[in-house]
């Protein structure tokens, strides 16, 4: 083994030394490959594990926390929600269509592996500014890829979030979430057990695709990375649809012992993890693996990341039953090995042993690092913001039209209209609201879900930024009338070997954990994506929270949009003006600076409580979270964001220091609510009783949005139709002509 070969496998000299010590000999090339992927950051979480251990993962309804393919939460009536979020950033940068498509394929397998039928997808996207053609190309390709896979397999994409910032130009983020429903007593795990039981390979044939995908996801981009392109995998949603139906069918029998999808690091990871969880060994012969290409080596077969494959452990004697079921679905299924007693992974090639490694060496004994951390010095300077130097707003109208057209705030219809968000007839709240809501088939319940993460906040203050993301997720779910249950998360960061990045990570995990503890929403799993940087330019540390909430009565879904003329509008939560890290500062003054808005998690919880209580009492007609763009944008969205005709409103605000602060400050823990006028006193009384500020803002009505701020000129008075036009055009304008052109590349089903 030459140092070059070792380095090419992403192993350090020290890691290699340990590897040799464990084996007591030089590894074979196949073994080196296996170690390299299992010890990669992507599979081993070697830099992050010590922090993730601190997260709250327990709860009375949490049946499965981190450690399996997805988290499992009890939702009553014998059913569970199974969900998870995953990143596919690197592959999507290299090949946006296929990268995003296979990301969807992967997260779907994570869910149906556990015996759940996938019912809802969501996507969290980050790109560089749309002025750049390359960013438009990436966005077009990624959206087409997500739609291409999700639409074809028939799982609705019900929501998501999309942001644009310079730092994502060379490192877009593509995180995909999936949620499925299973019967509580029919949850499957990825555990091998029962010495002698057959290990069965099902699904697509193995090709040379994606070899080294896991190591690729564990290194930064540099010149020449694009040369690694042949590792790109092509997704086949049609085959996955067959695989999904076949797996769910076999799961109705009792022939299976365990099942695991083949994702990153393919056959290697699935065999090793199944053996590790079951504390057994697995022995396979690669010659039996169905192959798409000729002359594949054991190294290539073990490391291939061909898509649409699963690994099953069945009960001895049930082989025929399993194989014939899969053949009915026109899928390959082959017994490739057995469960063994000794906890070793043994790989043969036509009988000859080409790798034999103790399972623990690849899992428990994988390297674990407490990497150095250091708080970046530049944070202090960034945190400093002197508002004296920034002139206050003069023209409210112009500013509102401009901010609602900012791609970060503008309608995302250009994106989600490329997704089938309706299939399976469960979608109750469609994309465009704070949270998506689907009904739970066969029950009167519904599930609300939201993806949230403000990279700018995390950049300015990772701990607080992560807290804000959890709080916003919970608030979004509450706006749909649901009680927040639990989260999954995707942590997108730069190079962990850089102490400043590692500090950001440590802080963010701490903030996320604290918020989850306080809000009572445990972490059921997630994903860490490091090395999101190109040529040393890192992304904002980007914490994406996937929040899931439950509604007991699916007919009582809340939406953000104003309903009737005459309804009264309230602001629930603190009335402050915090401009630090806001979309306003970024858009109007090109500033990403200041103190991120402070969050009082106790207040947050109370605000959410009041909202749910008043909704329970039947007093609410709408609820909307104030997020990017602050109060003015939230009000505008309530007017124009719904599926019907836009509605006007007359708003009167008291005082404040600055007009821009009042209109566009992003203080958290705030909701815009409406009620029938006769309910106003009750809401005010309840809020007062709970110690939550509750401000009467005005009434719904007319065809324009008027916002007056006491003692200030230049407030807002605009026809809602005009606001809507600006908002609808924000993203669309970049694609009228371009869409077609940019979308061309990366599409193979021309």
């Amino acid at each position: 083994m030459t140092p070059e070969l070792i380095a090419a496998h992403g192993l350090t000299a020290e890691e290699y030394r340990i590897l040799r010590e464990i084996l007591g000999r030089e590894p074979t090339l196949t073994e080196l490959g296996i170690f390299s992927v299992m010890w990669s950051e992507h599979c081993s979480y070697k830099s992050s594990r010590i922090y993730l251990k601190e997260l709250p993962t327990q709860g009375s309804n949490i049946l499965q926390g981190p450690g399996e393919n997805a988290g499992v939460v009890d939702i009553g009536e014998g059913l569970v929600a199974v969900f998870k979020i995953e990143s596919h950033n690197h592959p999507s940068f290299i090949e946006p269509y296929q990268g995003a498509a296979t990301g969807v394929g992967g997260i779907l397998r994570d869910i149906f592996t556990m015996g759940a039928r996938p019912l809802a997808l969501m996507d969290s996207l980050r790109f560089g500014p749309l002025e750049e053609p390359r960013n438009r190309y990436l966005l077009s390709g990624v959206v087409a890829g997500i739609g291409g896979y999700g639409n074809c397999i028939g799982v609705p994409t019900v929501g998501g979030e999309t942001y644009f910032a310079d730092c994502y130009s060379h490192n877009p983020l593509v995180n995909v979430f999936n949620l499925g429903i299973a019967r509580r007593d029919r949850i499957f795990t990825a555990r091998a057990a029962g010495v002698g039981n057959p290990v069965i390979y099902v699904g697509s044939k193995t090709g040379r695709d994606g070899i080294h995908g896991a190591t690729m996801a564990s290194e930064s981009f540099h010149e020449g990375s694009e040369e690694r392109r042949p590792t790109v995998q092509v997704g086949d949603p049609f085959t996955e649809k067959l695989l999904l139906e076949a797996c769910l069918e076999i799961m109705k029998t009792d022939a299976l012992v365990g099942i695991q999808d083949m994702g990153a690091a393919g056959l290697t990871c699935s065999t090793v993890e199944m053996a590790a969880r079951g504390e057994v060994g697995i022995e396979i012969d690669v010659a039996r693996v169905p192959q798409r290409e000729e002359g594949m080596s054991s190294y290539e077969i073990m490391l291939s990341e061909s898509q649409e494959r699963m690994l099953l452990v069945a009960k001895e004697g049930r082989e025929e039953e399993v194989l014939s079921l899969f053949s009915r679905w026109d899928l390959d299924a082959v017994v490739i090995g057995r469960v063994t007693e000794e906890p070793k992974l043994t790989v043969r090639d036509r009988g000859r042993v080409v790798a034999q490694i103790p399972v623990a060496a690849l899992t428990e004994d994988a390297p674990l690092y407490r990497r150095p951390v250091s708080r970046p010095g530049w944070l202090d300077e960034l945190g400093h913001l002197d508002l004296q130097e920034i002139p206050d707003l003069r023209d409210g109208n112009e500013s509102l039209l401009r901010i609602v057209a900012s791609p970060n705030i503008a309608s995302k219809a250009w994106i989600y209209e490329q997704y089938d968000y309706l299939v399976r007839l469960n979608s109750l709240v469609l994309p465009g609201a704070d949270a998506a809501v689907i009904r739970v088939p066969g029950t009167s319940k519904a599930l609300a879900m939201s993806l949230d993460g403000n990279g700018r906040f995390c950049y300015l203050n990772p701990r607080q930024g992560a807290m804000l993301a959890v709080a916003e997720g919970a608030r979004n779910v509450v706006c749909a009338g649901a009680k927040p249950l639990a989260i999954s998360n995707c942590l997108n960061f730069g190079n962990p070997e850089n102490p400043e990045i590692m500090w950001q990570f440590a802080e963010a995990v701490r903030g996320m954990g604290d918020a989850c503890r306080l809000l009572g929403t445990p972490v059921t799993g997630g994903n860490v994506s490091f090395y999101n940087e190109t040529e040393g330019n890192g992304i904002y540390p980007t914490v994406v929270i996937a929040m899931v909430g439950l509604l007991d009565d699916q007919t009582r879904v809340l939406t953000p949009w104003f309903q009737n003329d005459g309804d009264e509008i309230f602001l629930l939560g603190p009335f402050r003006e915090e401009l630090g890290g806001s979309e306003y500062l970024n858009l109007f003054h090109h500033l990403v600076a200041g103190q991120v808005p402070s969050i009082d998690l106790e207040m947050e919880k109370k605000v959410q409580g009041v909202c749910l209580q008043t909704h329970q009492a039947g007093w609410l007609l709408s609820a909307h979270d104030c997020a990017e763009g602050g109060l003015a944008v939230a009000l505008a969205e309530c007017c124009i964001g719904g599926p019907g005709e836009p509605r006007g409103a007359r708003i009167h605000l008291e005082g404040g220091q600055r007009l821009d602060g009042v209109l566009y400050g992003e203080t958290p823990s705030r909701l815009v609510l409406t009620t029938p006028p006769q309910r106003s006193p009750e809401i005010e009384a309840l809020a007062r009783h709970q110690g939550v500020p509750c401000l009467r803002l005005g009434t719904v009505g007319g065809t324009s949005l008027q916002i007056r701020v006491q003692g200030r000129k230049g407030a807002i008075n605009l026809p809602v139709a005009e606001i809507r036009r600006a908002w609808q055009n924000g993203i669309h304008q970049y694609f009228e002509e371009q869409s077609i052109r940019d979308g061309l590349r990366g599409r193979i089903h021309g």
Partner: protein
Amino acid sequence: MKFGIVVFPGSNCDHDAYRAIREGLGEEARFLWHKDQSLGDVDCLILPGGFSYGDYLRAGAIARFSPIMGAVTEFARRGGLVLGICNGFQILLEAGLLPGAMLRNRALKFVCRFVSLRVENRNTPFTHLCRPGQILKLPVKHGEGNYFADPDTLRLLQERDLVVLRYCTPSGEITVDANPNGALKNIAGVCNEAGNVFGLMPHPENASAEILGSVDGLFIFRSIVSSLKKRSDGYQVA
């Protein structure tokens, strides 16, 4: 009434059609596997939406050779009611049971959105419960819904009144902007000359319950049930 829903590999609105029939309409439904040779005693056939064979090659091109398609054709020939929704419509076109063909959407993108549709022909078993000029609100969700027919076929369609649905504005005008995919003459659904085979791109099953935001799809399903009831009791198919 008993609806048979044909499941092709890659169908994914089969389950939705089933639910719409059972829950929205309160009628019976059963799945028919594409490898089946016979249809059993169903009263109406639905070819559901989805991506049969992944839409590879052309939407519907491979599915139309499924073993069950012989029985479907025979059923249609004898006057049985056949409803093709989205991918089902594409299969009927490929099979030659309806005239025309589908091209990729003009904007070259998949489109999912609620659209307005004007009922152009109420003299079909699928639309006779609609009011004259009724406008239905149904979602479309497809990448290849850009209906095409050559000039002769188009003339025939118009002369014989075979265009059943057109994309329109909420107030019923047929405009370019109201057309989500570039379909010729805003055509969203057509029937055959006998009137017993109907294909449409929009999804009536997705508008089959109040909780889903629209029940307009039920006009189509209820029309089917009522026309089946009107047919003489002795009427037999398959």
